[in-house]
């Protein structure tokens, strides 16, 4: 995956350069000193080919989606998440991974893990929350400048280059999912210099709002959102309603069956926000609630 014969020119890079006016896609094809060491590779048309190792070069990171593509979303997809409360024991691996990958400021979290207890005689449980990516998003309704928006694939994103920092969306969100960059975010140099994309939410910007973005940049790479892959207990299932499939990385299941068989529900259904995040009730638990207190 990480190696493509240089002489063939990386297709993505080539197309990228074609789009990038003023640069010649054939630039950078330089003479390479062969090492004599051969490696076997699978070509795009299905043949095993052998090439010299000297031609191997790492594929550069895909450039993040442009602001325009970020607004459109990924065609044909309807992203959805299922959170299985019977598996959560407040390990917070999801939170740590998310915070690290999105450079969330100290003291703030995009993924919060609530200790819930509805009433005196009901059982306590752990409830991780992400952005609900509502189909009727109250935050999007109130944004005065279209800085936060709903895409065709269901994801709600923020354009931090446009956000004016009025924080109306934070007041509007009943799930308290949004955080504000009160301070200038502390970033490693290479992240601070990377081109901003609403899909990566990176680099975060002072004076603007941030929140869980469902990691569409990972999805474009055919990978799972950071919280999903970080959870060792498989609490988070991520997938596509159109394919009726969700996966936590190790188990892949029919979304409709999962939600039907385990009585899935959504948070604050009465508000009419139509969240994209479904919860499976904390029954037949893998862990006791108290296990989560030890963390």
């Amino acid at each position, binding site marked *: 995956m990480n190696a493509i014969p240089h002489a063939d020119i990386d297709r993505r890079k080539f197309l990228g350069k074609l789009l990038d006016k003023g640069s010649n896609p054939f630039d950078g094809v330089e003479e390479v000193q062969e090492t004599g060491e051969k490696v076997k590779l699978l070509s795009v048309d299905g043949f095993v080919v052998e090439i010299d190792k000297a031609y191997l070069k790492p594929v550069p990171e895909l450039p993040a989606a442009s602001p325009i593509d970020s607004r459109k979303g990924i065609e044909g997809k309807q992203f959805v998440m299922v959170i299985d409360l019977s598996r959560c024991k407040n390990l917070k691996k999801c939170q740590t991974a998310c915070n690290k990958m999105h450079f969330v400021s100290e*003291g*703030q979290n995009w993924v919060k893990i609530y200790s819930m207890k509805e009433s005196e005689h009901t059982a306590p449980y752990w409830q991780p*929350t992400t952005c609900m990516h509502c189909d009727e998003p109250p935050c999007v309704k109130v944004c005065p400048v279209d800085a936060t928006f709903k895409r065709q694939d269901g994801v709600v994103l923020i354009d931090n280059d*446009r956000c*004016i*920092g009025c924080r109306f969306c934070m007041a509007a969100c009943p799930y308290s999912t949004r*955080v504000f960059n009160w301070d200038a975010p502390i970033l490693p140099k290479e992240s601070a210099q990377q081109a901003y994309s609403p899909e990566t939410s990176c680099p975060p910007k002072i004076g603007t709002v941030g929140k869980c973005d469902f990691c569409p940049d990972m999805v474009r790479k055919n990978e799972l959102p950071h919280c999903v892959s970080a959870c060792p207990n498989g609490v988070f299932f991520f997938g596509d309603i159109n394919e009726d499939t969700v996966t936590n990385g190790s188990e892949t299941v029919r979304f409709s069956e999962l939600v039907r068989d385990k009585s899935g529900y959504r948070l604050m259904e009465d508000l009419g926000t139509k969240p994209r995040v479904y919860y499976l009730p904390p029954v037949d638990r893998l862990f006791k609630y108290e296990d989560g207190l030890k963390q």
Partner: protein
Amino acid sequence: MKSSADLQAIPQHELDKLMPQPFGKRGMWWVIVLSAVCVVGIVAYVRQLMYGLSVTGLRDYASWGIYISNFVFFVAVSLVGSLITAILRISNVTWSAPLTRIAEIIAVSSIVFASVIIVVDMGRPERFMNLFIYGRLQSPILWDVIVITTYMALSVLLLYFPLLPDLAIVLKSGKLKRRLRKLYEFLGTFWIGTPEQHRIKEKAINLLSIIIIPVALAIHTVTSWLFATTYRPGWDSTNFGAYFVSGAFLVGAGAVVVAMYAIRRAYSLEFFITERHFDRMGKLLVMLSLLYLYFNINEYLVPVFKMKKSEAEHLSSLFTGEFSLIFWPVIFISMVLPVIVLLFPAGRRPLPMFVIGILVVVGAWFKRFLIVTPTLLHPFLPMTDVPESYKHYFPTWEEWAITMGSLAGALLIVTMFIRLFPILPIDDIIKGEGYEKESA
């Protein structure tokens, strides 16, 4: 309108007091103190521009604080322009005529600072123009932008048109220094006072008085919708528009009482601003206090009767919890006490009116704080995974400085206006409007 015999009843030395006058020693000190407060506010804002909103006590839960409550306060105060000028005018009430300009300049300066303070609250003030470049009409913020700019324009016109004959009167008196005369000439040389001009002016003012009433109701209703269009306990209320508008009339009337007392004292205008004016403003305040109290009862006691789970925590924090020490004093000093004191004729004399006016205004400011912040500190899901400091809200010195600076700035605009222009409508007074002898 009175006969010419009555007109001569105003002695010349009283009329002279209506001319703009240089500041005395007290006036100078007043301006210096206000300017100093403004400068401290500007210093604090420069710090906020440098370090971002992290210099405030605002955090993710209490994401709106005293900037926003101060904004609501300014919008509320500005409503008085339409009350005194427009509503009383089209109901053919003439006693309030000497107070119209005071009310109108308070309206203009408040609405200007409402706009200033809302920019101060923005995390990215340099992107202000995005509101016009990318503005989306379904956002209540856009509605607020539209109605506030409209109201500002109408208020400036309502200040300006009645000023035209007065500009001519002051110019003719020949007492103006050169620079001030230039300003007057720029603003009003075209006014020569023909009957046709008077007719057009009166027609324009009548028209503005009618147009400004729905716009005034709109500015405060829309401001209340910034809160009421969310789901949050304490804001999710169909009562909010009327509740805000009634509160706005109360605080605006209180502000006018304070201003008319101060102006009367400073310029010895007892001849024009009489005890009868205080008496009538006092009765108006009683009515407005009762009206606001009525909406408060609706706003709090109906939810308390049900004690829905999501509302209960918020309501008990106001009634018995951490905000109760602000909540009850505010209800008492700005709604109950005015009714009790002002029901008695002795309570409607200038000095007690002045004191009550101040209590109403101060109470109203804290009332706006109680509307904004406690709700944000009682979200649907419990406050989790945040540092302890996120669970409370204490404004920092920068926030106080900027807020005090904005209040001082609004007072400074009013003060400078009084320095430059006649604060009472001379033309109306000469014609006998609102100038009543005790026998009238």
